[in-house]
Structure formats: C-alpha cells, structure tokens
C-alpha cells in the first residue's frame, strides 16, 4: 500500500539538462510525482502507474527499487519537494485525476490527488537553496528541503503526504457590517478589509473613506446595515479596475474627465469626419471592434496583469493571456481569438535588486530573472495550449520596473458581422433570461484581485489575489462557444468573468435588462466551505456568463456537458432595477442597480506641474563607431528577441503571413501580420509601441511617439492608412500625486492630438494606475520604486492585398533611402543612455509632416516601388540599417558625405520619429522621387553582394562584417 506514484525519466530530460547547465552540476534529477488522498493497493498502484507514465521512457519508483534505481544516476544527498499549496490550481493533478477516473471508472472513486515535483541533487545545501528559489514560489507552493536519506525513509515508511484544502464549516451566511463608526475605523475597513470575529481582516477593499461614507449614507437612508456581501460587491464594482474613476473624474478644468475629452473625444471627432463603417464597436464591450471586410469584424483588446505577475509571474502572466482571450470570446456574441500580442516592461534580469516587502529583510521580492522567466513562460503556456498564434510582441528593460513588472497581454478576435441575420456585435440580456455560468468551478482564487490592483503593492497584499490559468479548460469552453453554440443563436448575451468574478460580470450584463436575482448556492465549487461573499467575488478563471432564453436552456446545457464543460443555471435577469443575491433563500445582497453602478463618489482631481530633473549621462569619448554599434546591438532593448519568438507558436491556425522573425537572418520585426481567412486576401497587421523613457521629461511627446511608431509600423508593413485603429493602455504610478496626474493629463492630451491628426481612432483601452512598490532595500531602509509612466499604444490595421505586404530585406543593386528628416534628438535614446550626448533634444513628432510622408509611402508601396522597408526604431538609422543587413545577408555601402551632417553619431543614432529606411530598385528611383517631391527623402547608400556594412562620411570609413554584427545582435540576454 502506498499513496504516492513517483516517476522518473530514464534519459536526461530537457528540464534536467537546463538545470544541470545552469548550476554546473550533473547530479540533478527531477521526479514527477503524484500524491493521493487514499492508499493504493498493489493492483491499483500498477494500474494507475501505467496510466500516468510511459513504459518506454520512464520508470516507476517503489519502496523496493528506489535506492537501486537512483544510485544509477548519482550519489544524491539532498531533496527539494515542491507541492502546490491547498486550493492552488494544479493542472497536472486535474488531468491525472480525469484520466484515472476515465480508465478505472467505478473501481477507484472518491479520491483527491495532487502533483508534486521532486528534485534530487548532489551538492551543498546552499546550492539546493538556490535551486529551490529558482524552481518554486513560496506564495503558491510549499518547498521542503531535506536529506536524501529522509526521502528514502519516506518511501519505506510511506510518509508522503497530500495537503488538501481544509476549510472550517461556514459560521455565517452573511454578516452585517456597522459603518456608523469613526473615520479611523472606516479607514481600517477600506485599507485592510472587513474585520472577522477573531479580529483578523479579510484583505483590502481598496475603498477610500469618501466611498465608505457614501455607502454608509445609502444604508442609513434605507435604515438597515449593509451586509458583508454588499460591501465586498461595491468594493469590486467601484474599484479603479472596473470604474476607471481617475479617467472619468473631473480633473482641473476638464469637467468631463480625460477619457471622455481626450480618448473617446478623439474617436468621436474622427467618426464625425469619416463616412465609412470602419468603427463598429467602441469602448462599450469587452474589446473594440472594426470592420475587416463586408462580412467580418475584427476586435482587439489589450489588458495588463502587473500586480499578480509581481507575486507569481507564471500564474500572473498565464492568467493575463487566457483572461484577455476571454475578452474576445465576450466581444459581441463571441469572437474567435486569432492572435495574441504581448509586451513586457521589466527590470534587468541579470541584476540582483534585493527588495523586501517587510522590515528586517523579510518577505523578499522575487528575483528579477525569476519574474522575467516566469512571465515569458506563462504567456507561452497560455498561448500555445490555447491554439492561438502569438506573433506580435516586445520586451523593454529599465531599473524602475524592479518593484513592479508591466505585463501587457492582447488578443485579436474575428466574428461574422451577422449571425442568423442579427448584428453579431449587439447583445442584450432580456428580463426573464436565465443566467448561466459556464466553464471552471469556483474556489478562493483571486479574491480581492480587482480591489487589489487599485492599491500599491505593500506588505498586506493578499496572497489569495493570485490565480493560475488553466488553458485547456478554457479551450474546451471556447470551442463550444465558437464552434457549436454561437452560430445557432442560442444565447442573448455573453460576457467574461474576469476581475470581480460573478459580481462584476452579472452586474454589468444586468444593465442590459434592468437587474438580476442570483442563487449563490447553485454555483459549483472546487471545494466546500466557501462563504457567499467569496463565491460572489472569486476570480477563479476560465468562466463566462451567458444570458439564455428559458426555452433554450436545456439545449445549451446539454451541448456544454457533452464536451466536458460545466454549465450551471444560477439565476435570472429581471427588469426591476435591483441587484439581488440569495444564498439558500436568504437575501445576502439587495442594492439598487443605479447605486451599484453610479453611486460612487466622483473624484475631483487637481494636477500640478512637476519639476523636471533631467539626469544627463556624461559623454564617453574615443569609442570607435563600429564598437558603438556593437554595444548598442547588445543592449537588452535592441538585441534580438528570437528566443521568445521561437517559444511562442506563431504558426498555429495556418494564418501566419509576416512572421516575427524576418529574412534569412531572422531579425525580430517590429510588426507582424496574419491572414485570418483562407479564401480572402485581406490581412491583419499588428504592432505596438511605448516610450516610458520619455515620460518624466515630456509625457505629451511620449504619447505622440507611441502613436507615431505604432501607426508608422503598420503603414510600413503595407496597411491601408484609413484602416488603422489603436488601443491605449495607461500604466501609471502614484496616481494620487498631482504631479503624476499632470503627466497623465498631458499624455492623454497627446493621445487626442495625434489620434486626430492621423485619423486613427481609439477603439479600446485600459488603465492600471498604481504601479508602485513600497518596501525596503537591502540595507533595510524604506524605499518606494515607481514605474515610469508607460503608455502602450497597440495598433491593428488592415492590409487590402497580399502584394502590399512589405519585407525588410534589401536586394543587391538597390539604392537605400531614408524617408523623413533626421534631427538632433538623442535625449533618452539608447545611444545617450550608454555613451551620453552633449546638446540634444527629445523627439518631437510633427504630425502634419509625418502624415504626408505616410500617405506618400502608401501610394509608393501600392505602385511596388519598394524592395524593402523598415521603420526606424530604438538605436536609430544605424541599428535599422544593420538589421536590414542581417536580415538580407546583403552588404550595405552607406555614404553620408553629401548630407552635410554635423556628426555621424547624431545622424545614425538619433531617435527622431516618423522615419523609414527603404531600398529601391534603380529604375524606380525617378518615380519615387517624383512621388515624394524630392523633399524629406535622402539617399544614403546602396545594397551590394559583399558581406560587409560600410559607413562613410567624407574621408572617414567604418566597416564591419555582417556576421560580426549578427553575433552581437543575437547575443543571449543574461538571466533569461
């Protein structure tokens, strides 16, 4: 009898190989184990071992063979055993349970199991400790380190133990909360949560005192005390995450708030001017939608998942990506996710920042490399397992992301314009429709996630705020919705269960009908013992909410169940404007819908002009130009991101047409494209840009540069200038500080001006306002690290014909031109960060000039005048040229002599916006010059069949082999 099955791979696995390499230790072996809640007799042990293992490549460890089998590998002396904490999503464990149950049916029932990872090592204890730090996260896992002898002993005496969720019986269904208390007490509730009987606090509500007083007045008026469920619900619904209070607040003299004035205002202005059907669905739905062609709509949404990714990078990132997938599934009647995008803003993974959340060096932040690698893998597993290509993304590094990484995850979706004759982007839950919860079950995961993202990351950050996505459960759910349900028109409305869980999804949908009544006891749970308030706000993943007409209910549930997906009737939409939640017929929540959604106190914000401190790097002189180019290529912000592109499946769905790695030399491109329909030429081009490096100096220009670059990259890829839409994701810091608010207002103003100037509408957006870390440094001193305000602009555009798609590889004999003037704009450039630069400025986008160039580019491209084109990005023209050289493996002879430039560095490394390097066949040059009117285009060289890139300026010549540049460009980033 035993309660564990432990499996080892006979050959060295990839994971073992990488661990062995990383720690320069050949004596590391990983064992995949399972722990059962009940004992297995010999027969069951054999049966289940066979189900869970591969007889050819793996061996099962038993009491009798363990010593002998393991002695074949090494003389191990230490063991690290890693188990999930009770209640944490264990995908491997659930799959194991499912296949055991399918195979053994009734002969083995009523059991729980958990997966366990056991690492055997020969080495010293410090080594073991380091490995455990890299391989496990104490927030979601238990890590036991013990001597190998003890491990053998555990086997012999059968002492392995499964930790199960143990919840005490519910002591109450609801609790009344007295809000007629002192301001101090109210503050405690807002900051630390409702107090339990034992004086412990539930965790932050993220409600400020004004909000709590508003709630108090509401309940005093109706002469009763609020229930805990009501307060928790209001905290979710009024959270910054759900209501975007800062963006809708009156700010200085802008009464309508910056969202209405600058973001939606820009789009409204654009729609007024254009007379087409390009904008289909804006700001109101889970994602924004534009017209793809006469029969289809594409939608796009980008979300952030910053705080969860700081705490559990893998879980945070995988939840981020599968979560935003659901935003597409919840767009209109349900769009099929057809592409993922990503952008990570991280601390340098090779640095040891040593930050602690608590005094006396307690509760350390995870190491920067752990965070970076966890985030990269989380999106990999989420995207790849969901069968959604992930072509488009980037990473940027800066020390100021050490306290909080920024993780942007986006998804593009596709949906027919009409479903059974009805417009697919319109949906409405009607009074009398049933509320159906579909997908995963509910546990304690992610409780207080929505309120939490409104708060700074401080020592009281609740650990339950972490969830781990389960892409396969979601894939099953998504398959049913997209392939079996949607086109039969069997539901009237659909939305995603994300932040705030049921409280938020049902609360939002009920606006369509009036109100709702929910019976919480019907909600299927992962484990018993959850309180009603927990069920109502839990953020357990992979769930969506449907509104279903009573006559279709049985049919819908049957279809879900046939595919192994739970679908549960939990309530009804009503026309009365009341939000009502019951548990076993006891009313735990009864609020006016108006109060629920609009009752929160509106903020009145003031801004103040910040003092700008520009720290200038001292100039480093006497470095050869070629060495400078190498140094820049090696910068983590410029170096190739091939290692991510090859981990993220960008070919699935058979739609990849412009891939992330471009040309023979596999250069990481700044835009990608997919062709989503097999029988239609139209292609979707994707790009994105952010310039946090400009935020502190000029937030207005930061926005301008982001919009310009994201827009330009699509123009360069071949997109139709009139069919480009953009999305805004504001990640800010300390948004209660008037100076930060000033920067926010400026950035939003920039958004308006440049969106209108380029006539590219905002279709969707999101904000995350408190990306600050408050804790202690390695000396134990208090420290606050705020991210630089970061505005990510994602762009999505339609390319009308395959032949319009450009490439980045010049051909032998081509002439090389730069489109766009190069100015002395190296401030905060990659070059200045490394080498310094005397007198220089920040880029300043001149929209009128730029749009003229883009229009001409579009025309020229349609006439097929370009053999190649690449937008100038970080590192300036110098780096852009080298990328084109590497991509094509053709030589470039660059001669700047005729341009009368002031210095070669200034010309090659300036990061002036709105510039494009193009290569043109000789016989097209006249047409090209005619089209551009000869101004703003500059001939700089030719493409040849040598293996060299040469830069000439008057009598100076600099020359390097492409292969050497390529070596620098493809250097591995340390720590990744």
């Amino acid at each position, binding site marked *: 009898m035993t309660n564990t099955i432990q499996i080892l791979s006979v050959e060295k696995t990839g994971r073992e190989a990488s661990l062995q390499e990383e720690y320069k230790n050949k004596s590391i072996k990983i064992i995949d184990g399972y722990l059962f809640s009940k004992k297995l007799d010999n027969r069951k042990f054999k049966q289940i071992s066979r189900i*869970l293992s591969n007889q050819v490549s793996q061996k099962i460890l038993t009491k009798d063979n363990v010593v002998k089998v393991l002695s074949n590998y090494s003389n191990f002396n230490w063991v690290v055993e890693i188990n999930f904490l009770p209640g944490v999503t264990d995908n491997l464990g659930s799959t194991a349970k499912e296949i055991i149950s399918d195979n053994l049916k009734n002969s083995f029932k009523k059991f729980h199991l958990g997966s366990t990872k056991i690492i055997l090592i020969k080495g010293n204890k410090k080594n073991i400790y380091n490995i455990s730090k890299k391989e496990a996260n104490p927030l979601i896992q238990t890590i036991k380190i013990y001597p190998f002898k003890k491990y053998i002993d555990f086997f012999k005496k059968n002492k392995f133990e499964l930790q199960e969720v143990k919840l005490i019986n519910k002591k109450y269904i609801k609790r009344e909360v007295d809000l007629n208390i002192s301001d101090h007490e109210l503050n405690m509730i807002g900051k630390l949560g409702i107090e339990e009987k034992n004086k412990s606090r539930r965790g932050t509500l993220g409600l400020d005192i004004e909000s709590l007083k508003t709630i108090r007045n509401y309940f005093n008026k109706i002469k009763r005390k609020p229930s805990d469920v009501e307060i928790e619900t209001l905290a979710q619904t009024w959270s910054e995450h759900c209501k975007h209070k800062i963006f809708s607040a009156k700010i200085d003299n802008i009464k309508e708030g910056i969202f209405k004035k600058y973001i939606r205002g820009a789009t409204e202005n654009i729609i007024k001017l254009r007379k087409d059907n390009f904008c289909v669905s804006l700001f109101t739905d889970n994602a924004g939608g534009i017209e793809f062609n006469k029969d289809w709509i594409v939608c796009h949404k980008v979300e952030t998942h910053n705080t969860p990714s700081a705490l559990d990078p893998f879980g945070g990132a995988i939840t981020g990506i599968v979560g935003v997938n659901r935003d597409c599934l919840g767009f209109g009647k349900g769009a099929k996710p057809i592409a993922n995008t990503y952008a990570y803003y991280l601390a340098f993974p090779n640095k040891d920042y040593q930050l602690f959340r608590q005094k006396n060096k307690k509760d350390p932040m995870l190491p920067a490399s752990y965070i970076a690698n966890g985030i990269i893998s989380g999106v990999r597993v989420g995207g790849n397992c969901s069968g959604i290509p992930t072509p488009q993304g980037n990473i940027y590094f800066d020390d100021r992301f050490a306290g909080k990484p920024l993780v942007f995850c986006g998804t593009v979706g596709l949906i027919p314009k009409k479903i059974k004759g009805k417009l697919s982007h319109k949906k409405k839950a009607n009074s009398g429709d049933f509320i159906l919860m579909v997908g995963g079950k509910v546990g304690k995961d992610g409780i207080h996630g929505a309120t939490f993202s409104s708060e700074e990351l401080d020592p009281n950050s609740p650990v339950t705020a972490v969830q781990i996505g389960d892409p396969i459960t979601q894939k099953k759910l998504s398959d049913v919705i997209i392939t079996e349900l949607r086109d039969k028109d069997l539901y009237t409305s659909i939305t995603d269960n994300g932040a705030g869980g049921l409280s938020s999804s049902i609360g939002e949908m009920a606006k369509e009908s009036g109100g709702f009544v929910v019976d919480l006891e019907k909600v299927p749970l992962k484990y018993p013992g959850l309180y009603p308030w927990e069920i109502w706000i839990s953020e357990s993943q992979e769930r969506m909410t449907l509104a279903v007409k009573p006559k279709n209910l049985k049919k819908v549930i049957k279809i879900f169940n046939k*595919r192994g997906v739970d679908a549960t009737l939990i309530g009804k939409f009503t026309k009365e404007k009341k939000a009502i939640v019951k548990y076993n017929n006891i009313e735990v929540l009864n609020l006016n819908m108006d109060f629920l959604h609009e009752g929160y106190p509106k903020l009145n914000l003031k801004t103040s002009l910040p003092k700008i401190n520009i720290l200038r790097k001292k100039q480093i002189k006497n470095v050869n130009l070629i060495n400078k180019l190498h140094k820049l290529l090696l910068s983590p912000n410029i170096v190739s991101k091939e290692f991510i592109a090859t981990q993220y499946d960008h070919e699935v769905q058979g739609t990849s047409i412009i891939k992330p*790695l*471009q040309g023979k030399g596999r250069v990481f491109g700044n835009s990608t494209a997919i062709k989503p329909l097999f029988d239609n030429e139209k292609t979707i081009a994707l790009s994105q840009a952010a310039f946090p490096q400009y935020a502190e100096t000029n937030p207005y220009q930061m926005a301008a540069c982001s919009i310009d670059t994201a827009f330009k990259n699509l123009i360069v890829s071949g997109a139709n200038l009139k069919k480009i839409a953009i999305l805004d994701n504001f990640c800010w810091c300390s948004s209660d500080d008037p100076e930060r608010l000033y920067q926010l207002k400026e950035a939003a103003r920039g958004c308006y001006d440049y969106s209108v100037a380029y006539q590219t509408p905002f279709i969707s957006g999101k904000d995350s306002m408190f990306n600050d870390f408050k804790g202690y440094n390695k000396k134990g001193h208090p420290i606050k690290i705020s991210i630089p305000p970061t505005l990510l602009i994602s762009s999505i555009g339609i390319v009308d014909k*395959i032949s319009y798609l450009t490439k980045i590889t010049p051909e032998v004999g081509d002439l090389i031109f730069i489109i766009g003037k190069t100015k002395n704009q190296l401030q905060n450039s990659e070059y200045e960060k490394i080498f310094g630069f005397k007198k220089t400025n920040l880029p300043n986008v001149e929209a009128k000039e730029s749009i003229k160039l883009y229009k001409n580019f579009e025309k020229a491209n349609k006439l097929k005048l370009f053999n190649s084109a690449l937008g100038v990005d970080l590192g300036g023209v110098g780096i852009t040229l080298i990328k084109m050289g590497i991509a094509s493996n053709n030589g470039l002879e660059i001669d700047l002599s005729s341009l009368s430039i002031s210095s070669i560095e200034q010309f090659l490394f300036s990061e002036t916006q709105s510039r494009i390097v193009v290569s043109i066949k000789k016989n097209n040059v006249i047409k090209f010059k005619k089209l551009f009117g000869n101004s703003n285009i500059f001939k700089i060289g030719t493409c040849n069949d040598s293996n060299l890139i040469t830069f000439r300026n008057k009598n100076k010549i600099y020359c390097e082999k492409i292969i050497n540049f390529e070596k620098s460009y493809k250097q591995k980033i340390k720590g990744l």
Partner: protein
Amino acid sequence: MKVLVLSGYGINCETETLHAFEVVGFKGKIVHINDLIDNPKQLNDYQVFALPGGFSYGDDTGSGNAMAKKIMNNLYDALLNFESKDKLIIGICNGCQILVNLGIVPGININNPEIAMLENSNGVYQCRWINVKVSNDYSPWLNKINTLHLPVAHQEGKFLIPSNIFKIIQDKKLIGLQYINIKNQLASKKFPDNPNGSHNDIAAITNKTGKVIAMMPHPERALYYYHEPEWQNNKNRKFADGFKIFNNAKKYFK
C-alpha cells in the same frame, strides 16, 4: 474521398488540417472525440483519419499520453479496425505523440508503445521552420517526395527509440522523415537543423505498411506559398511543401 479530423480536449489544429485536405479535393468533417466515442462506427464512412496538432490535456502526464489513454480506453478497437483496412491515418505533432503513445507506430507488436516522445533536448518549446528528407519511399503519404521545408512547433518532439526497436525500424524502413541541414545532409542532432535532439534525426515514423504516419512537422501550416517565411522572394508557386503530403493522400485513393 472523406477525411475525419479529430477534435476536443485541447486539440487545436483541426480547422487548418481539414482545410488542407479540402484544398486537395477531400470532403471531410471535424468530429469531437466524445462524439466519436458515442458512435465509433462513423469511422467506416471515411478513408482518412487525421489526428491534428494541439495540446490535448495540456501535455499533462506527457504529451499525447492522456489522449492516448482515452482512445485506448474508448476507441481502440475502432481504430485498429480502421488501420486494418486499406485506409490512411496521419498524426501531426500532438497527433504524432498520441499515435506513438498508442503504439500504432511503429506498431511492431501491437498493444504496446514501443518508442516514446521526450522533451526537446534544450528544454525549450521550438516554433521554427526546418528541412526534412523522406527516408521511406513506400509510404503513400511520402510518395515521390525528396525533401520538405516545414514548420515545427512543439515542446516534446524528440523520438526516443530503444536499440532493439531501432534495429527493426531500420530493417523495415519505418523512418518517415529525418531532419537535414541546408546541405541536404542529415542534421546529426545539431540544433537548430534538428530542433529537438531527436534520435537519428527522426521527424516522422510510419507503421509497417506506411499507411499510418506520425510526423512532428506541420504540413498544414505550409500549404500556400505565403506560408513560407521567405515567400516574398519566391512568389512563383501557388503551394508550399506541406501541400504534397495531402495531395499524396488524394493520389492514393484516385
């Protein structure tokens, strides 16, 4: 000519796989595994059974293992029956891993998996284009093909073959495809030509008749000319290399 394409539980390449068959002239249907379990006899209506790529059960307990156990437990006889007739089976990527775990390939002694799929040698998921050569001239799937340029995308693509089994595989010529370098020589396990460290550079294996093929590369993602990474330098053809695999299936029945 009809193809049944399997779906469900995390399989995710069914749409493009069916499309590839349709382009060469097949009619076909995507069938969820639960529906196939409910009515295995429907397989009789089809000439080709395709197990597409994806992440069945999220690769948990080893890629292809959980789905293979489900098939073994619920559909095995129907599958063996299908195989015994003059019909074709293809497993692509995750489908390949499932066929290997079922022991359908190499299928020397039926009922037992004889080879295994391991995690890539470098431990990292690989999505990239590779070159393979055809090493088995009698499989209908590979007929008259010399080399192919195709994408792979997998975490566990390394064939592990015990030496006694490898001898038989070599004798009976069951190796379908092998990774090669740009000089058209075997990749000799060198990354990235061999993206996963596979035994003897193996990328695909067939059963004894060649009618069942289990291949790690994705021919359905290399269907049209514009799927090729450098299609802009070579627009003179309509289809990319993957087309040939599906077209061979058509030729077999015509």
